[in-house]
């Protein structure tokens, strides 16, 4: 088995174990509640907490588009990171031209960032 497959086996097993890791104490807590301390529900008890008042109005409200604007820019730069990381790994083995190429790549994106900055998108309102 290759190194990578051993790694993936580790990841798969670890994924399961990591999911079990929080589940085991939760199950223990559930067992405890079952055998000793009964879960008791109530209208007020299981109501939404709002500083001691009864909650009013809808809590699933529409949000401001600012979040979305940040999201877009984040997405674009996240994709950029996907291209940047392979470049970075190969950086020392590449000629200066490649560096210039990636600089152009970055500059194009930075241009978008600067545009957004000028447009006031990066100003949290």
């Amino acid at each position: 088995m290759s190194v990578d497959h051993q790694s993936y086996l580790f990841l798969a097993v670890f994924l399961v174990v990591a999911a079990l890791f929080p589940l085991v104490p939760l199950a223990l807590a559930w067992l405890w509640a079952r055998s000793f301390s009964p879960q008791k529900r109530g209208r007020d008890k299981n109501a939404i907490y709002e500083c001691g008042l009864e909650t009013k109005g809808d809590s699933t409200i529409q949000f401001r588009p600012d979040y979305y604007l940040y999201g877009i820019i984040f997405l674009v730069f996240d994709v950029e990171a996907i291209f940047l990381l392979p470049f970075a790994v190969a950086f020392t083995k590449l000629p200066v031209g490649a560096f210039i190429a990636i600089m152009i790549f970055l500059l194009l994106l930075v241009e978008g960032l600067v545009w957004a900055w000028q447009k006031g998108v990066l100003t949290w309102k």
Partner: protein
Amino acid sequence: MLPLHYYLIVSAALFAIGLAGALTRRNAIIALIGIELMLNAANLNFIAFWRYGSRPEALTGVMFVIFSIGVAAAEAAVGLALIIAIYRHYKTTNLDEIDSLKG
């Protein structure tokens, strides 16, 4: 190693699911998710073909998928922005309603 067509069928199923969702759901966001799924199904195909291709060291499939991810991201950003803009205008994300409201 599993035969290639296993992956291709999974990819086809994913594509069909995405297509069905995109065609049947009224909500524009879900439709977009469907399209996103179809793109991913294609990506799976690329990787599978590359892996079973004759020259895996050429990395064509990987490159294709990386660029495809970039394009898909751009598509998602613009698509969702469009949905938001439409929602702001028509106060709905329901494709049928948008359809009937236009004009």
